[in-house]
């Protein structure tokens, strides 16, 4: 640890040190700034590169700010970059990703919230056993289940379709979401639940009239978790969505790593930025809720 042994006052929750330029502070802020450099650098390079022309990229260095700012690469990345199959840019991928995202998020959250509620407040014989299996499932590598799911989807007539990929996202989102909702509903005071029971409310009545109105925060957390998770998915999209429904990540990879033609690094970086914008916006808007979401998902397991 980067501490000066002489400063025995060092502790995380003490009063703010009076000398703001103490050796200890210089070390702390120095290390933090070094880390900031590592984390910021790629974002900076992405933006800078996407605003340069190709000649400038060949001659200049990756860190230099653009001399002639051009938005040409962004336009091309969005509308006319080639994937090896077609030259429509990322636009179809974006639309596909939205088409996959919205139903997947809505359905997975709807199912998992009701399910978590049942597990927290209406336990039945065996419910915990199934829940334990579900949680274990979260750790099984997808690779083990990939092929049998292909067979199942084919039997259902959903393979390589929008419905298929939505179903797969709903399935793989279930462990974490159910855990999230179960833990949240379990923390609701039992008196509230009992009072509603005495008043004659049933399973759905209590869920819709009591649980839902007071659980907006956890729904937002689930929304953040699912939106970033599904938007960023590659493996499931490439296998189950089918060529015409390829999500944005798959199309991005096809554009950048296509072996045909001259590599246009500025277009590639613009495309990469475009794909990253949605989760970044979600992240920056949601702030602390994002942290809460991943922490709830991760630690309570």
């Amino acid at each position: 640890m980067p501490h000066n042994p002489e400063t025995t006052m060092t502790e995380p929750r003490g009063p703010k040190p009076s000398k703001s330029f103490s050796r200890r502070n210089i070390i702390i802020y120095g290390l933090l700034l070094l880390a900031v450099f590592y984390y910021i650098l790629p974002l900076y390079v992405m933006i800078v590169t996407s605003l340069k022309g190709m000649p400038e990229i060949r001659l200049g260095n990756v860190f230099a700010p653009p001399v002639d700012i051009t938005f040409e690469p962004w336009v091309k990345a969005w509308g006319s970059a080639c994937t090896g199959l077609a030259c429509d840019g990322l636009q179809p991928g974006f639309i596909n990703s939205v088409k996959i995202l919205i139903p997947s998020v809505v359905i997975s959250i709807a199912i998992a919230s009701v399910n978590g509620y049942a597990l927290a407040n209406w336990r039945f014989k065996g419910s915990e056993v199934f829940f334990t299996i579900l949680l274990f499932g979260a750790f099984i590598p997808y690779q083990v289940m990939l092929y049998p799911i292909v067979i199942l989807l084919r039997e259902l007539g959903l393979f390589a379709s929008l419905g298929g990929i939505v179903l797969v996202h709903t399935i793989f989102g279930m462990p974490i979401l159910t855990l999230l909702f179960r833990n949240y509903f379990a923390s609701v005071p039992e008196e509230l639940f009992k009072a509603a029971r005495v008043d004659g409310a049933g399973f759905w009545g209590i869920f819709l009239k009591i649980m839902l109105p007071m659980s907006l925060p956890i729904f937002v957390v689930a929304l953040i978790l699912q939106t970033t998770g599904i938007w960023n998915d590659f493996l499931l999209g490439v296998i189950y969505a089918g060529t015409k429904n390829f999500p944005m990540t798959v199309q991005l990879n096809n554009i950048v790593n296509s072996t045909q033609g001259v590599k246009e690094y500025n277009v590639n970086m613009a495309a990469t930025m475009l794909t990253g914008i949605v989760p970044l916006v979600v992240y920056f808007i949601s702030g602390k809720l994002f942290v809460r979401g991943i922490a709830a998902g991760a630690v309570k397991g």
Partner: protein
Amino acid sequence: MAQSQRPSSLFRNLSAKIAAIPMILTALVIFVGCTVWTVVYSFTKSRMLPKEDFVGLMQYERLWATKRWLVSVENIAIYGICSLILSLVIGFVLAALLDQKIRFENTFRTIFLYPYALSFIVTGLVWQWILNPTFGIQKVVRGWGFEDFTFDWLANTDYVIYAVLIAGLWQGTGLVMALMLAGLRGIDEDIWKASRVDGIPSWKTYLFIVIPMMRPVFVTTLVIIAAGIVKVYDLILAQTSGGPGIASEVPAKYVYDYMFRAGNLGQGFAASTMMLVTVLIILIPWVILEYGGKKNAS
């Protein structure tokens, strides 16, 4: 809850059972059913299509005799060990630094965590560009006058996996930092007061008191990182496509390529079963450690 004591008849609590149907189906059909199916078919001679043509351990013998698989296993071992250690160290150090009552804590935390919101594809492609031997860091440093400077890990078969590691750490350490920070905030403040009264330097307090107290957080984080490492696929695909040659192949990519490209299902099943076994080796001791004791106690 009181409900658990009710006499169990199939139709009692019916709504809850209906609500749990998707979970029950997912647990039984997907997580148990599909996993068992793959393990069973890994003992068959399946090629383009699954066949019930059992051949014992033939697929596994072939797997462990394949150079590409051995390279994949070696890579994931190097990547895994380095990633585990460095994630924990970097994550903990960053969390400890942020826990010093510093200014702009929220800004720092936002910056460290944002890569975690990005996909592995985006991560891989950005670092592919930064580490590009022709245009990336190597060229910049040479431009400063260090003509002999070489940093061509992406083109170097011995170092390419470490180039992937740089990208993987960039994406994932923010999460570890967030988990560790939550753990640090959970430490009783009296501990710090007591150690200060005793005149113990804070690095010693961290090392011998705080870290041992945070054992559950460390163990959970370790399991989360480890389970993620086994699945590494997108990152490799985007950053190196497994190259140069087969130098940065990983097991997950082996599975995908054999199942969906080479039309050799048997090899894909055997390789994915090996991945499952690895996860179980990590998971089972953790479950016994964390939950086995608790159940006995209660």
